[in-house]
């Protein structure tokens, strides 16, 4: 197994280290000046090679690549520094071997072994970083979805769904589900859909809103579309989308007034010190 290679790496530590620093400066001109967060310069670079060494020298008893990668990731250096760093490390080790090993057959075998030493680190590095990203993205995605179609009961029998941002197919589905569930849970008679924060209302968005309101009508409640900005109103007309079956109001405030009227209530001003109305 690659023990011979590890012995090389161990014995020529100083040489490898220096060659690595030199080569890195060639590959990445900005590298010698790179400063990892909370670390001084030489520290960061030394650490990278140190961590590789700690791993390689203990490979026989632990061979836990994951632990090693965790340590590397803690250095908080950009991922391309790590991948280039590893590649340069491999090349430097191969050069060191080439200088002392003259038998071509042995040399080829040692090259292969060097690959086998570096490859698992490389694979694990890529696997771990992509997994971290994928996890972050999926967490953010689910958090975004939770926030994307909230139905808020504002008054007895009246709820509001404020929509902010782009509506895609996935979100449109969620809007429909939350509307229907919310109408039933909150006993809403009127639901106001506020599209003030929706940047573009194209035929697809309009189609989804029309469908959602039709579904709300089927469960016995009423939908009012509010927050249609003037430019959106014009594009809707240009597109030829017919919203005549659909009550609309310019603002959320007008919508609430209308909703109160539908539920046979109104807002009155109580004048202080005047008993009569």
């Amino acid at each position: 197994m690659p023990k011979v290679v590890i012995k090389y790496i161990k014995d020529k530590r100083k040489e490898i280290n220096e060659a690595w620093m030199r080569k890195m400066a060639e590959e990445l001109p900005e590298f010698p000046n790179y400063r990892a967060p909370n670390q001084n310069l030489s520290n960061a670079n030394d650490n990278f090679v140190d961590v590789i060494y700690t791993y390689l020298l203990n490979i026989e008893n632990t061979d836990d690549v994951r632990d090693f990668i965790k340590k590397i990731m803690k250095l908080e250096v950009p991922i391309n520094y790590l991948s280039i760093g590893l590649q340069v490390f491999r090349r430097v080790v191969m050069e060191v071997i080439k200088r002392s090993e003259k038998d071509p057959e042995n040399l080829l075998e040692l090259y292969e072994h060097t690959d086998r030493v570096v490859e698992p680190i490389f694979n694990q590095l890529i696997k771990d970083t992509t997994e971290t990203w994928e996890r972050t993205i999926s967490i953010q995605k689910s958090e975004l979805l939770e926030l994307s179609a909230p139905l808020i009961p504002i008054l007895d029998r009246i709820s509001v769904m404020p929509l902010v941002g782009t509506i895609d197919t996935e979100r449109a589905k969620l809007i429909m589900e939350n509307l229907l569930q919310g109408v039933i849970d909150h006993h809403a008679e009127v639901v106001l859909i506020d599209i003030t924060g929706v940047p573009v209302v194209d035929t697809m968005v309009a189609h989804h809103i029309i469908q959602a309101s039709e579904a709300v009508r089927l469960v016995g409640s009423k939908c009012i579309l509010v927050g249609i900005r003037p430019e959106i109103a014009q594009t809707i007309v240009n597109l030829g989308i017919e919203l005549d079956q659909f009550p609309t109001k310019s603002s959320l405030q007008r919508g609430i007034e209308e909703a109160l009227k539908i539920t046979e209530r109104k807002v009155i001003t109580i004048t202080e010190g005047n008993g009569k109305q």
Partner: protein
Amino acid sequence: MIMETRSSVPINNEWDIVQARQLGRQISREMGFGHVDQARITTAISELARNIYLYANNGEITIEPIVNLGKKGLKITSRDKGPGIKDIRLVMQDGYTTSGGLGAGLPGVKRLMDIFKIDSTLEKGTNIVAIKWLR
């Protein structure tokens, strides 16, 4: 801004649609289009990009400022190598849809923009050019 700037957005998924229209909004704003025309342009891009995504799976939206006889305008080109459109007259009719939508997409784009040209070959793809003049 240099008038030769030309920007393309490849359309491969739903998020590319958002990217295409954000670019359209940015360029039209920089060119001095008003709020309403900005909304018209972004909506038109949205429709064209969505058609690519829905019917051809992938394609490209190109947005470029143009000058014609001293008139400034924004040209949107939608290109795909999708199945093509069998009967262009039919898809330009309001309410015609093959995807269960509203069927207002292409005729809508035509009304939103000043110039609208469509060119489609079955099995080869569709090419749409739409221009909005700056008033």
